[in-house]
C-alpha cells in the first residue's frame, strides 16, 4: 500500500511573523496523495490551502517559514533537499498552477517564451543541436497549447498574456505546468476566476490529462461541487487545520464534521455546484494566538463545554477522519 503513496506530508506547520504576532497559517497538517489519484482540498478563503502547498513546493516567502513537519515526495524528504535539488524537482516532478493566471504569467514575456523555458528546463528528449532544438521546442509548444484547446497556437505563441482571455490564460498556465509531464500537479483554484462553461472545460481537461499521463492531482477549490465531480478523496481545511478527510462520495453523503455539514448545507443541493461557498454565520478566527480549543467553536451549532480543549483528528469510519469530539461512528462502519 505504501508504495502507492506519492506525497506524504506529516505535521506541517507554517507560520508568518507579522507585526501583530505570529500567524500560524498551517498548523499540523497531514496530507497523503497516492499515485494517480485526485485529491480535493476545500475550505473558505484563508484556511491555509495555498500556504500548505506553497510549503510543499518550497516556495514560502519571508516573512513566512516552515516551522515543523516532514514533506516526503516519492521517498525523499523535500525539506532536507539542497536548494539546487529542490529547484531541479520543482516543475519537473511537481508542477503547480496558481490561483490568478493574470498575475502568474509574466506580462513582459511572450507566452511562447514562457512555455519554451519550461521545456528547456525539463524536457530531456529535446535534440542537442540548436536548430533542431528550437524546432522541437516550437513543435512541443504548439502541441501543448493545442492540447489545452487554444486554436492557431503557432501564431499565439508570439503573443503576450494580456492578449488572451481569462480562461485562455488559465489554460496556458496549465499547459506550462503540464509541459514537463509532472508526476504531481497542484492546481490552486484553477477555475475560481472563470465562468461556468470554461470552468467545466478546464476541469475536464485536467481530468483527461490525469488519465492520459497517469499523474496525481491536488485540486484546491472552494467549490464542493467541483470536488464531487472530479476528486477521489477530499480534505476539508479550516483555520490552518484539516478538519475532515475521506473518500469524496462518503464525505459528501455523510459529512462527520459540523463545518463540512455547514459547507454542504450552503450549496443548492441538486446541482451541488455554483457560487463560492458561504457557510455558517461568523468568520474564520484570527490566526494569531489561537486559544487552546476547537477552532470552529465560535461558529459551531453543536459546541459545548467539552470543545474547550485542543481537538485531535478522530477516526470517523473507513479511511475517514475528522477533527471533532462529537463524531458518532455507526457501529457497522467501525474498523
Amino acid at each position: 500500500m505504501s508504495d502507492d503513496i506519492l506525497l506524504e506530508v506529516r505535521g506541517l506547520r507554517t507560520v508568518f511573523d507579522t507585526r501583530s504576532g505570529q500567524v500560524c497559517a498551517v498548523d499540523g497538517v497531514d496530507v497523503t496523495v497516492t499515485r494517480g489519484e485526485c485529491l480535493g482540498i476545500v475550505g473558505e478563503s484563508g484556511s491555509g490551502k495555498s500556504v500548505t502547498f506553497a510549503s510543499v513546493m518550497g516556495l514560502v516567502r519571508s516573512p513566512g517559514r516552515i516551522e515543523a513537519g516532514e514533506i516526503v515526495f516519492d521517498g525523499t524528504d523535500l525539506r532536507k533537499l539542497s536548494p539546487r535539488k529542490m529547484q531541479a524537482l520543482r516543475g519537473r516532478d511537481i508542477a503547480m498552477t496558481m490561483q490568478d493566471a493574470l498575475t502568474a504569467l509574466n506580462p513582459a514575456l511572450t507566452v511562447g517564451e514562457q512555455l519554451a523555458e519550461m521545456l528547456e528546463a525539463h524536457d530531456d528528449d529535446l535534440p542537442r543541436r540548436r536548430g533542431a532544438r528550437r524546432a522541437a521546442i516550437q513543435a512541443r509548444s504548439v502541441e501543448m497549447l493545442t492540447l489545452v484547446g487554444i486554436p492557431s497556437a503557432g501564431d499565439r505563441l508570439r503573443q503576450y498574456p494580456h492578449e488572451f482571455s481569462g480562461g485562455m490564460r488559465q489554460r496556458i498556465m496549465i499547459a506550462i505546468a503540464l509541459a514537463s509531464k509532472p508526476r504531481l500537479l497542484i492546481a490552486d483554484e484553477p477555475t475560481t476566476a472563470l465562468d461556468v462553461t470554461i470552468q467545466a472545460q478546464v476541469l475536464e481537461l485536467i481530468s483527461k490529462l490525469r488519465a492520459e499521463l497517469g499523474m496525481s492531482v491536488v485540486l484546491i477549490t472552494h467549490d464542493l461541487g467541483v470536488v464531487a465531480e472530479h476528486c477521489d478523496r477530499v480534505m476539508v481545511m479550516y483555520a490552518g487545520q484539516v478538519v475532515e478527510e475521506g473518500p469524496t462520495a462518503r464525505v459528501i453523503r455523510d459529512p462527520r464534521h459540523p463545518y463540512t455539514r455547514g459547507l454542504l448545507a450552503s450549496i443548492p443541493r441538486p446541482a451541488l455546484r455554483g457560487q463560492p461557498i458561504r457557510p455558517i454565520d461568523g468568520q474564520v478566527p484570527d490566526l494569531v494566538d489561537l486559544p487552546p480549543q476547537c477552532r470552529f467553536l465560535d461558529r459551531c451549532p453543536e459546541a459545548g463545554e467539552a470543545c474547550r480543549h485542543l481537538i485531535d483528528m478522530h477516526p470517523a469510519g473507513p479511511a475517514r477522519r475528522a477533527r471533532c469530539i462529537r463524531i458518532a461512528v455507526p457501529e457497522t462502519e467501525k474498523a
Partner: protein
Amino acid sequence: MTFTRFLERLLQLIPVLLGVSVIVFVMMALTPGDPVQIMIGDQIVTPEQEAQMRRDLGLDRPVVERFFVFLGNALQFDFGQSFYHRRPVAEVILERLPATIELTVVAMLIALFTAIPLGVLAAVRKNSIFDRIATVGGLLGVSLPGFWFGILLLMLFAVHLNLLPVAGRINYGISQGITPYTHFLLIDTLLNGRFDAFRNALAHIILPAITLGLPMTAILMRVTRTAMLEVLRADYVTFAQAKGLSRQRILWRHALKNALIPTVSVAAIETGSLLGGNMIIETVFGWPGLGRLVVESIFVRNYPLVQAAVLLYAVIYVMLNFFADILYTILNPRVKL
C-alpha cells in the same frame, strides 16, 4: 498613434522654446558685463570705434527689439554670428557637439552598466552590508558636487598614479591622420584601424565620463533596486520558481525585464540632466565640448552662442522625454503602440 504623439511633442516644443528664449534673454540682459567692453579689453579704442562695434553686433538696439530680431532669425534657423569667433553660431556649435555627445553617451553607458547590476544585487540582498554600502554610495553620488569628485579622481588617477591623462580628448600627436568619419573619436579611431589612438581616446574619456555619470548611476541604482523589490514580490516570480527555472533566469529575465521598464524611462530623462552636468565636468576636465564652450561664452557675454546653445539643450531635453515615452511603450507590451 506614435506619429500623432510625435507631432504633439513637436507642438509642445514651441511654448517651451519660446519660454526658454525669453528667460535666457532676460537673464543675459540682467547680468552685469558688456560684451563690447570685454572684447576691447586692454586695447585703446575711440568712442566712435566702440559705437561702431556695438552697431556691428546689433547691441545698439533696445533689448526687446533685439529679442524679436533674434526670434525672427531663429525661425529661419539663423542664430547669428558668434561675437567671439566671428563665425556663424550654428557652425561653432556643430563643431563642438560631437565631443559632448560622445562624452554623454559614454557616461550614460557607464551609468547603465553599473547601476542596473548593482541595483539588482542590492534588491536581491536587501538589507545586507552590500545593500547598505550601495545605499550610502548612492546618496553620496547624488549629493557630492561633480567638480569636487572629478578633481578627486584627477588627483588620484592622473596626478598621483599617473595612469590617465589630465585633460582633453586625445593626445595631439596621436590624433593626426585620423579621418573624422563620424566625429566621434572612439568610433573614428576604430574605423581608421588606429587602436593606439582608440586606447588614448578611451583613457581621456574615462574619468570625465565616470564623473559625469555618477549622479545618474546613483539615481538609476535606486530606481532599479526599488523596481526589483516590487517585481520580486510578484506572482509571476513565484510561478517562475514553481516552474523550476534557475535563479539566474528568474532574476535577469523574468524580474529584470519588468523592472527595466521604469529604469530605462528614468535613464532617458536623466540623460537630459547630463547635459547640464556637462558644463561643469567639461570645464574641470578640459573637454573640448559644447558645455565648456557655453561656459566660456557666458564669461565673455557671447549672447548669440549662449542663446542658441540653450535652445538646443531645450530641444534635446524635450526629445529625450519623448524618447523615454517610446521606450516605455516598447518595453511594456501592455501599452499598445
